[in-house]
Structure formats: structure tokens, C-alpha cells
């Protein structure tokens, strides 16, 4: 290598020493690199960075969207659960009410039945009383006639003898009983 450089140097002229640059080539590289750097700064890097950023955003946006959907779903689930518990409470309440109402109705019916039975008893009493009254009235009228009849008989038999009179009265009463028993039948 050294020899080559020396031989090139002795040959002279035309900058054959490899370490001596060609000014024009340096200029071309400088300008060319500057143009490339400008294009890269102005277009290439922003375009790639924009794409990268958009891609990252799209991925993150997708994740955010999924998270939102999940939150929405869990909120809906929570709501359904809430509604379910509400419905259960409502059903319980209605059942309680129905039970209370049933008890109320039962109590009412019992009271009504008791009142009815009391009324019927009352009516029966009244009927018995009225019949007794009627019996008393009819008895009173009949007793008059009977007494008159009895008296006639006694008088007819001779009113003197007390013993006889008693016999007559007994017989009369026995007649009366058989009569009333026959009437009852």
C-alpha cells in the first residue's frame, strides 16, 4: 500500500494520493446528502411517524372501545340484577298483602256468620215467644170454654160431693192431655 502511494506520488499530478479528496465529489456528496436529508425530514419521517401513531391510536382506541362495551355490559347486568331483586321484593310484598287480605276476608266472614247465627237465634227466640203468646192467647180462650164445659159437667153430676168433683176434674185433664197429644201427632 505504502509503495503504491509512493509510486503514485512520484508519478505526480492528478491527486492520485487516495487521501486527497476531489473537491467536486465532496460537493456532490454534500449537496446530495443535504437533499436526501431534506426529503427525509420533510416527508419520509413524518409519514412513517404518522402511520405509527395512527396505528398505535387505532389499537388503543380498539382497547378503549372494548373496555367501554364491557363497562356497559356490566352496568346492564347490574341493572338486571337490581330489577330482579326489585321484582322479588314486589312479589313478596304482593304475597304478604294477599295473605293479610285473605285473613281479613276470613275474619269478616266469621264475623258475618256469627252475626247471622245470632240473628237466626234471635228470630227463633222471637218466633218461639210469639208462638208461646199465641198459645197463651188460645189457651186462655180455650181454658174459658173448658172451664165452662167442666163446670157444666160438674154441675150436671151434682155439685155436692167434693170427692166426685175432684174425680171429674182429673178425668177432664186426662182427656185434655190425650187430646193435645193427638193434636201434636
Amino acid at each position, binding site marked *: 500500500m505504502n509503495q503504491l*502511494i509512493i509510486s503514485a506520488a512520484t508519478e505526480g499530478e492528478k491527486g492520485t494520493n*487516495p487521501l486527497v479528496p476531489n473537491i467536486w*465529489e465532496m460537493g456532490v456528496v454534500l449537496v446530495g*446528502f443535504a437533499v*436526501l436529508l431534506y*426529503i*427525509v425530514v420533510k416527508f419520509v419521517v413524518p409519514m412513517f411517524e404518522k402511520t405509527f401513531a395512527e396505528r398505535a391510536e387505532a389499537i388503543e382506541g380498539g382497547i378503549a372501545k372494548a373496555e367501554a362495551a364491557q363497562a356497559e355490559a356490566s352496568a346492564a347486568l347490574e341493572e338486571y340484577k337490581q330489577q330482579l331483586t326489585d321484582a322479588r321484593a314486589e312479589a313478596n310484598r304482593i304475597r304478604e298483602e294477599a295473605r293479610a287480605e285473605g285473613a281479613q276476608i276470613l275474619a269478616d266472614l266469621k264475623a258475618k256468620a256469627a252475626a247471622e247465627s245470632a240473628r237466626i237465634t234471635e228470630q227463633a227466640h222471637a218466633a218461639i215467644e210469639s208462638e208461646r203468646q199465641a198459645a197463651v192467647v188460645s189457651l186462655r180462650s180455650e181454658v174459658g170454654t173448658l172451664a165452662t164445659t167442666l163446670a157444666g159437667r160438674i154441675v150436671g153430676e151434682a155439685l155436692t160431693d167434693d170427692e166426685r168433683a175432684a174425680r171429674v176434674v182429673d178425668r177432664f185433664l186426662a182427656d185434655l192431655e190425650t187430646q193435645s197429644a193427638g193434636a201434636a201427632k
Partner: protein
Amino acid sequence: MIALALPAQDSGSFTPPGIDEMHLPAILPWGAHDGFSKQMLLVILSVVIIATFFILAARKQQLVPGKLQFAGEMAYGFVRNSIAKDIIGGKDFIKYVPLLFSLFFFILVNNIYGAIPVIQLPSFSHVGGAYVLAGIVFFTWIAIGVKKNGLKYFKLATVPSGIPWYILLIVVPIEIISNFLVRPVTHSLRLFATMLAGHLIVMLAGSGIEFLVMQENVLLKGASVLVLVGAIAMYMLEALIMALQAYVFTLLTAIYIEGALHADSH
């Protein structure tokens, strides 16, 4: 191509191609100098190739990328994440992505030219372009350091903390030389030298094969196959180095920027 034809003209002795064959005749000569060279055309072409590819790839901006957009995003994401984000880090790394991205693909395309059969000339086998790029990087990281830390930056970059004064007498000159003098030189020459050497090897192998094939002796003719096998291996290695140098240059740029940003913690 012309270089390869030269040695075959005299079949008596083998003259290896040298540095002079790096300078192809100008496409469009002007002035005293070389005029418009093949390198210049290739550099301009590289700008067109890179800009066209990435604008086409980025233009559609679909959330679910197509093949072209996916390839573009892979390439962009490689520089953005594997170099800028991993080395510089923090929230500020995005500011330096355009520079690193441009550097990486500018160097990559200009290097890969050397592996493409008809073109077969890495642009940075001429040192000028490497000087320019290293110079841009050099002034960029100094500007970043000064902007971030003020003029105190030069002290931070050259005076390590926690070292006794008598050692500082030695360390400070070393730091100044290594950071502000050697760094841009190695940065540019690393790229240039690997490309020049790779190109020379390819030329040497080509002319050697041609020379051997032209020989009368059958054994010597047959030996050209061995050179061909070696040349293919070297070609593969060169292709690897071309990509690797683009990565190394960009990675070092990121490291320099990171060092300038966090000078106070070094």
C-alpha cells in the same frame, strides 16, 4: 472494467491494478480536474433511489401495511428503534432519527453499488464523500453538546471527573486528541478504507483471473479457478462489510450524539 482489461495487454508479466485504477475517466470532463465522475452519478442516483423507495413505501399510510409499506416500515423501524431508540433513548431520540436514517441508507446504497455487477463501484472508495459525511456528523454532535451544556461542554468532554490533577495533565490532552481530532478522521477513513480495500480486492481478483486464463500453460489456466473461488468468497465478505460499515457509521454517529447529550453523566 477498463482496469481489468489493462493487465491482459502484455501477457508476459502481471501488473496488479493500483490506486490509479480507482480513478475512472470522467463521464463529462471539465476544467483541470476529473470532471463529472462515475462516483458523482452514483451518489445522485442513490439519493433518487432512497427518496423514491421510501416516499412510495410511506405514501399510502395504511394501518394494515401492504408489502412495500411493510418493507419500508421494517427499514425505517430498524434505524429508528435498533439504532436511535436503543442508543440515544429518552424522549428526544426522534429528533435525530432523520439524520441517522439518511446516513444509514445513503451509505448503504452507495456501498452496495460495489456488489452490483455492472456498477461495481462503491462511491466511498473515493475519500471525499466520507470526509463530508464524517464532517457533518462531527459538527452535528459538537453543536448538540454545546446547545445542551453550553460552552461548559468542552470541559465536560475533555476533563473526566474524579481524577487527580497530575493524571489530568496526561488525560486531558489525550481526550482532546481522541475526541476532537482522531474521532472524525477514524470515522471517515474507516468507511473509505474498507470500501477502497474491498474494491481493490475485487479488481485484483478480476485481473488475476484474466491474466491466468490468458496463459499458455494449462496448469496456470486451471489455477484461475482457485482465484475465482477465492474471489467469490471475498465478494461475499465485501457485501457483508458494505452493509456492516453503513451500520457501524450510523451506530457511531448515534453514540457520539448520545455522548454529547449526556456529557455531564460521563
